[in-house]
């Protein structure tokens, strides 16, 4: 019997896969539960509980289900379970952040026991991506079940490679091997997952032999661990880009003043200023010194290899002189004063990143102060701090593309903010470009993959060339395991036992 | 039973040339500087002197309870012929509380506040005698009854704070008497008490000594108390005994100018409403005493010879004085204020 102990950087809050759409929860529950469509390590879609899917027409999708799959309690998996799941997923009591988004607008119908149809009102190309987020639960075990029942194990009956064993919130989560699993049987007979939030503590736990795998290795320790014979690292690109939102919508922006402190017109509305700021950022230095090479300079919203990225875009080169020239052209030869806001502890090295960028801006004459705050406070104020509108002038944020393709950041970050359409929901700079909006709309209605990919790339180019946002780098995710184990890095940042193998 | 026939019997305690000094940063405090005294069985010796004259330290020296930075530097303390200054700690400990007991000044402070009366009494029996618990308890009860505490059984169950000051002092006395010691050193046991209660305690102490034949050294600064209680009196000044003698002799015919001054300054020895006879000045610091006789600077009778330390001189049977120029014999016995 082989046991595996893994340490997470965050604490899963439930064994209920529909309770909260949150990385640690999703990672934990995916040991026990499965989706119709699975993401592989690179977030490419692969068959899960559905063996195949296709569009019947522009607005109808059909999913063929896997036969002979048994729930952990021995009963058989059928289309009824899928229908049941889709009914429950958006309506979990007390859910802090539900999956409603992925179910809404879709009508599910059972064709036969192993075929399910989904219809939408508009053409919807992202159907398989959406369904890759929703874990299928057993109708039999989970009817009427509350989140507590999942946590207690009663309703935590899945089809996954592991079976529920123990859930002690904040302390440990234990699963054991499902010997009847339909796919590749896991190596591990028992997996214990523990949250250890502090980075160094996590490393210490690994070094002390208390755990076998840790996620989110602090960048500062990567170099040291690389040289440690007892440890091996697994590092891979993530779907997360770190970037800056820029105030595009206010004529006078609250956190920018002239050098003497007097009010000035919002300089960020001038594309030359935005470009100058982007040029001022020394991306290689950030990657090198700050991120310990656990990052890649960014040119757009997602790194190469993801669906819909532009091949044309290259990272903005570090060019302080060019930046100063642009500033002068824009009428700010002596720069101005600005406050850069950012969260503290949301992204890897976020506070230090803000500080480093402030240093760089200050060097081109834009005297920048840094203010970081706890994420909960930050996102609130950044989203609606000024009477329901974004409060800050220039913020550091990150975006991870849950769907694994470019439409997600385009739609949320640079599309014009529109409550009713659900566009630009996270557009905290209120960037608005009608040309761009049109391209995005078109892409979102294009079911044809190739064509959609081209449209998405084009949209990215428009947004980046107009400096709607300033992108900095893509994060690399780093796992460390004790020697003899190997972690296959995942772009979605999930830490799951099936990705751990023995060497 | 007063110490009438001193020569014949062996004294319970004989101290001679005792010097107890404290070696402090400020200098050597000669708290006791050559004290000699003795008590006979059944006798009460009153040790009188002003505050800081070394009375308590004398008492503690006898019990071997001097702590650093203090030390007995010289002299001998003989208990029934046994030398105590050279005894081991353990020997001294087994004497303390058994053969020689002590009563302290402040009844509020002498009993351990967190232990019950019975505990504090029984342990005193048990550390010295191998007796059963019941036997020890019975002794405790009897001792309490003897000092006039009503319903001693229930009192045994009390904590000290549940008793009044007078009661507590009685308990302390009962503890001192519980092992029927040969000598009790009472260090101002009534000073903190009210007159009516003081009278009660004095009465009980007196009766007990008479009954048990225990010798007692009664330390006080109040001549009046001691004159009505003690058989003999020793007057202390600045670490030395300046005069000893039978109570009546000392009180009626003080020989040392200090004793005389002390007696004369008591109001009742003065005409009502007149100015009191006062001893000028104040008690000197024990760190730098005047050379020679320590009382010299305040003494109306000082002569040149007083620049040398006066030796103690026997001036009558059992009557000693440490003065070159003692108050004349010619003076009237009831040394009232000069008219």
């Amino acid at each position, binding site marked *: 019997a082989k046991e595996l102990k893994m340490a997470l950087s965050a604490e899963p809050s439930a064994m209920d896969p529909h309770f909260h759409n949150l990385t640690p929860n999703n990672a934990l529950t995916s040991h026990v539960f499965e989706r119709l469509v699975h993401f592989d390590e690179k977030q490419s879609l692969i068959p899960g509980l559905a063996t195949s899917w296709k569009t019947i027409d522009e607005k109808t999708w059909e999913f063929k289900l896997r036969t002979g799959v048994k729930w952990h309690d021995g009963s058989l998996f059928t289309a009824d379970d899928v229908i049941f799941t889709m009914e429950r997923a958006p309506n979990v009591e007390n859910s802090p952040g539900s999956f409603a988004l992925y179910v809404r607008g879709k009508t599910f119908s059972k064709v036969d026991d192993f075929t399910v149809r989904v219809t939408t009102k508009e053409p919807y190309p992202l159907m398989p991506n959406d369904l890759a987020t929703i874990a299928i639960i057993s109708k039999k075990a989970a009817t009427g079940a509350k989140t507590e029942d999942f946590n207690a194990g009663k309703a935590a009956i899945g089809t996954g490679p592991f079976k529920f064993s123990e859930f002690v919130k904040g302390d440990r989560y234990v699963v054991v091997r499902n010997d009847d699993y339909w796919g590749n049987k896991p190596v591990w007979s028992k997996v214990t997952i523990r949250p250890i939030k502090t980075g160094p503590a996590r490393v210490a736990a690994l070094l002390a032999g208390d755990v076998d795998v840790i996620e989110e290795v602090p960048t500062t320790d990567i170099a040291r661990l690389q040289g440690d014979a007892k440890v091996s690292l697994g590092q891979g690109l993530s779907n997360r880009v770190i970037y800056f939102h820029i105030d595009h919508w206010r004529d006078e922006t609250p956190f920018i003043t002239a050098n003497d402190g007097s009010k000035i017109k919002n300089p960020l509305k001038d594309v030359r200023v935005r470009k100058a700021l982007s040029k001022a950022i020394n991306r290689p230095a950030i990657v090198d010194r700050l991120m310990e090479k656990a990052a890649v300079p960014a040119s757009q919203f997602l790194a190469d290899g993801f669906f819909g990225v532009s091949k044309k875009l290259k990272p903005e080169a570090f060019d302080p002189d060019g930046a100063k020239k642009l500033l002068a052209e824009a009428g700010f030869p002596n720069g101005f004063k600005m406050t850069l806001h950012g969260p503290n502890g949301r992204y890897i090295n976020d506070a230090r990143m803000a500080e480093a960028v402030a240093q760089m801006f200050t060097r081109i004459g834009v005297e920048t102060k840094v203010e970081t705050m706890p994420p909960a406070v930050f996102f609130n104020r950044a989203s609606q701090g000024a009477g329901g509108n974004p409060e800050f002038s220039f913020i550091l944020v990150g975006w991870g593309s849950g769907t694994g393709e470019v439409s997600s950041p385009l739609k949320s970050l640079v599309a014009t903010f529109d409550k009713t359409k659900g566009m630009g929901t996270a557009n905290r700079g209120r960037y608005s470009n009608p040309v761009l909006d049109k391209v995005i709309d078109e892409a979102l209605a294009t079911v044809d993959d190739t064509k959609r990919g081209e449209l998405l790339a084009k949209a990215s180019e428009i947004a980046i060339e107009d400096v709607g946002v300033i992108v900095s780098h893509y994060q690399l995710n780093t796992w460390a395991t004790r020697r003899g184990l190997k972690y296959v890095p995942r772009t979605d940042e999930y830490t799951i036992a099936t990705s751990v193998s023995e060497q | 039973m007063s110490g009438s026939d001193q020569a014949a019997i062996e004294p319970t305690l004989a101290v001679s040339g005792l010097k107890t000094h404290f070696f402090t940063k400020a200098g050597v405090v000669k708290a006791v500087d050559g004290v000699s005294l003795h008590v006979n069985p059944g006798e009460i010796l009153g040790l009188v002197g002003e505050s800081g004259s070394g009375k308590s330290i004398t008492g503690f020296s006898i019990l071997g309870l001097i702590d650093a930075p203090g030390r007995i530097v010289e002299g001998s303390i003989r208990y029934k012929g046994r030398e105590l200054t050279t005894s081991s700690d353990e020997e001294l400990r087994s004497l303390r509380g058994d053969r020689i007991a002590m009563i302290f000044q402040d009844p509020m402070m002498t009993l351990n506040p967190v232990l019950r009366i019975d505990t504090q009494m029984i342990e005193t029996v048990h550390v010295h005698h191998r007796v059963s618990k019941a036997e020890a308890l019975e002794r405790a009860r009897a001792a309490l009854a003897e000092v006039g505490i009503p319903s001693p059984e229930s009192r045994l169950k009390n904590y000290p704070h549940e008793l009044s000051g007078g009661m507590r002092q009685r308990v302390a006395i009962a503890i001192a008497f519980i092992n029927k010691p040969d000598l009790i050193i009472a260090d101002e046991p009534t000073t903190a008490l009210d007159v009516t209660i003081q009278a009660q305690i004095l009465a009980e102490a007196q009766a007990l000594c008479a009954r048990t034949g225990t010798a007692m050294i009664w330390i006080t600064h109040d001549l009046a108390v001691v004159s009505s209680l003690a058989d003999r009196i020793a007057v202390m000044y600045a670490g030395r005994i300046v005069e000893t003698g039978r109570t009546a002799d000392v009180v009626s015919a003080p020989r040392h100018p200090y004793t005389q001054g002390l007696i004369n300054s008591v109001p009742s020895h003065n005409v*009502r409403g007149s100015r009191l006879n006062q001893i000028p000045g104040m008690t000197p610091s024990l760190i730098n005493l005047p050379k020679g006789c320590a009382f010299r600077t305040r003494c109306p009778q000082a002569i040149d010879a007083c620049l040398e330390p006066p030796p103690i001189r026997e001036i009558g049977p059992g009557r000693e004085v440490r003065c070159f120029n003692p108050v004349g014999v010619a003076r009237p016995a009831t040394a009232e204020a000069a008219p």
Partner: protein
Amino acid sequence: MSAEPLVSARGLSKRFVKKPDLAGRLAGHLGADVREETVHAVDHVDLDIKKGEVVGLVGESGCGKSTLGRMIAGLLSPTEGEVQFKGKPRDKLSGADARAARLAIQMIFQDPYASLNPRARVEAIVGEAPVVHGITTRSAMPAYVDDMMRRVGLDPDLKRRYPHQFSGGQRSRIGIARALAVNPEFLVCDEAIAALDVSIQAQIINLFMDLRTEFDLTYLFISHDLGVVQHITDRVVIMYLGRVVETASTEELFDGPNHPYAQALLAEVPRISTEKRSFHPIKGEIPSPLNPPSGCHFHPRCPRAFGRCRNEVPVLKEIAPGRYSACHLNDG
């Protein structure tokens, strides 16, 4: 001595009450044993002190001597009754009169250590109040202080010193100088010599008596030392558990106390004697002032108590001219 009393107490009472708070009262409703606790520290005391007189106040610990003294000195406000100064109720005075009355009565305290501000020099201790009240000016203050120090027998050169640099007797003198500095007429001495050594006591008593003749001072002399009281007072007031039990001129009292308590008290004062004496103390302890005995407070200890003593509070009656006693035995 004028006939008009300088200071008089009229039905003066002081009760210290400890009331249960809200929680306590609630608990009381729930049946817990929560009571208001009242100490009758001083219970309807009448007292006249004539100018130039020295009145001794004696009694055992806790009988209310200090409380009475402090009420007279104006440090405590009475619960009932009033203090009159030169025939006028002191509380009703205002302005300059009130201040004059306040300064006219000064207090000398027991503890020579605690009664001096350890952080002030003698000069400030003695000189502060006269300057504040305009008795002297700031510039004349040093000379004024010198004068005061000389009066109490202190070397004025020492005025730059702090209290800790003095002996107990000297501190007492400083305390007296401080009081004298505001030209008082009346001094309340609360155990003013109790903490001093016998030989020093005599010095301070002499000082009191000298000052009395020199400045025509009036004293309320609180003490438990009956020898001292006998020596220096003209009249003695004896208290027991908050009540005055006997008042008499000193000579009469010491010749033959009337009240059984006074008799017991006087009998038990140790006196220098050439004889060993046997003690015959009164029995019992001083009762708690929280729940004093009924009737005559002294009855449980009184050798001559009878039925009436248990139930009826004896009143202070004049049994001879200028002599008062509160005992039922006097009623025949």
